[in-house]
């Protein structure tokens, strides 16, 4: 059932968001990338211990989809993008007030806990089924980068084993969870939050693993961002949030200022 819910979330992005628009001013509305589904409630909980009077409502979706919705006027106070590109897009449109680079998340290969797959080269083997993100979709682009770093012959072997190029990372993860694929290219945190799965790190085989940077924006079209949004950004940039993020498999970005 949980798997089903996870699958349904990316598939139904938008619908819930659009239906959930209310005019309540006391509420902090956060649009967060789908890959934050597991860690965000913990961050919100920590934030609310400090500011109990602020209600926080989080909507999840693909970063691209969320950015489009904000562009369309969806009422978000804070946007957490899994992709620098989408954050930059909103900044270019003058929709963002403040920016915080939150954390990094590395691309890994998710396999079943008992799988014999130990390195990216194993993905080219006989009878191995591989799921990845579609080209253009953030996780798909990172996967293309990873494959480009491999010797061409191995990359070609892996490509032959690809059974699906999915629209989002949760869909990729579900293939491995359901046993339909032996391996899927996902973010490290996706594996941390899933049960029965193990992450095969890419850093060893590739030198450096492709990674994505999470960027937090306070959204303000006409007025300055709400006080609550400022506070939330400050909390996310603090040491407590960093600890929560690290526990979930993210690499918090240490601020020098």
């Amino acid at each position, binding site marked *: 059932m949980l798997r089903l819910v996870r699958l349904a979330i990316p598939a139904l992005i938008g619908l819930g968001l659009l239906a959930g628009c209310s005019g309540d001013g006391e509420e902090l509305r956060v649009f967060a990338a789908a890959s934050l589904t597991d860690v965000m409630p913990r961050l919100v909980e920590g934030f609310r211990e400090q500011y109990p009077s602020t209600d926080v409502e989080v909507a999840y979706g693909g970063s691209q989809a969320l950015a489009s919705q904000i562009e369309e006027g969806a009422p978000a106070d804070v946007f957490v993008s899994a992709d620098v590109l989408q954050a930059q897009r909103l900044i270019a449109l003058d929709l963002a007030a403040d920016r915080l680079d939150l954390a990094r998340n590395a691309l890994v290969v998710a396999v079943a806990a008992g799988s014999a797959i130990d390195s990216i080269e194993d993905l080219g083997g006989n009878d191995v089924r591989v799921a990845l993100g579609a080209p253009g979709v953030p996780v798909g682009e990172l996967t293309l980068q990873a494959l480009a770093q491999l010797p061409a012959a191995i990359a070609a072997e892996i490509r032959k084993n690809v059974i699906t190029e999915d*629209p989002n990372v949760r869909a990729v993860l579900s293939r491995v969870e359901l*046993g339909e694929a032996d391996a899927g290219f996902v973010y490290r945190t996706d594996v941390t939050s899933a049960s029965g799965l193990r992450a095969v790190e890419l850093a060893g085989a590739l030198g450096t693993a492709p990674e994505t940077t999470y960027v937090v924006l306070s959204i303000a079209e006409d007025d300055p961002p709400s006080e609550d949004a400022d506070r939330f950004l400050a909390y996310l940039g603090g040491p407590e949030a960093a600890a929560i993020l690290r526990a979930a498999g993210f690499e918090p970005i240490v601020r020098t200022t």
Partner: protein
Amino acid sequence: MNEGWTRRVVGRGWVVIALAFGLFFIVPLVGLFVRALTDGDVGAELRSGATWEALTLSVATASLATALAIILGTPLAYLLASTPSRWARAAATALELPLVLPPVVAGIALLTVFGRRGYLGEPLDQAGIQISFTTAAVVLAQIFVAAPFYIRSAYGGFLGADPRYEGVAYTLGLSRWQTFRRITLPLVWPALAGGAVLCWARALGEFGATLLFAGSLSGETRTLPIAIVTAFESPAGLAGAVSISVILVLFAVALLLVLVRSTSVRGAYR
């Protein structure tokens, strides 16, 4: 006098509500077209090989699914309608269940049977036959989700056909097959054609079950609705998604017009 006035206002109110409701369907579609023309690039999508691949795959699979729904669904609907039993009625109701299932659930249900670890999928996989994540899975997902529209319509048609016509045909010496072809089929033709069009349209728009059960590979399993959602999650974003959507809508309208014309009630009795 007074009563006539009331009736006139009520009469007009009725028309206003009807027109407003009609606009509820038309305005969003107009918005989609305006959006595609201002933000999107329909021409670029039309020239894109990936979009054509998705379009031809969608049309081919939806048509195959509809053909199979007709070939296999017509005898099923006829059997159920001509069996005067409580069980037949219960079975007819059960066949409508896929209509209420969210498509994602339909996809999971199909995986439990035909998936790599499914009841049939696992032994087939060991025999070297793969169903999930193939074009065949796209067709199966579409049949599962869309064929009930056809079966339901055909069942209603067969139920409504007066059995006395068939009885008379038998007494006049027509065989069972002749009776079915010359008497029953013309009687139920509008129901069959209407059901087939609905089935085809639903299959063409199928997304949730297909993505889950068949995946998304260009040219193999990425149908147009999946291509639209993929575009929406890529940097092309909304602009790309609406451009492909417009192509889907235009194509569906064109084909539906042709289908409705060629299967109109008037034509059926010719």
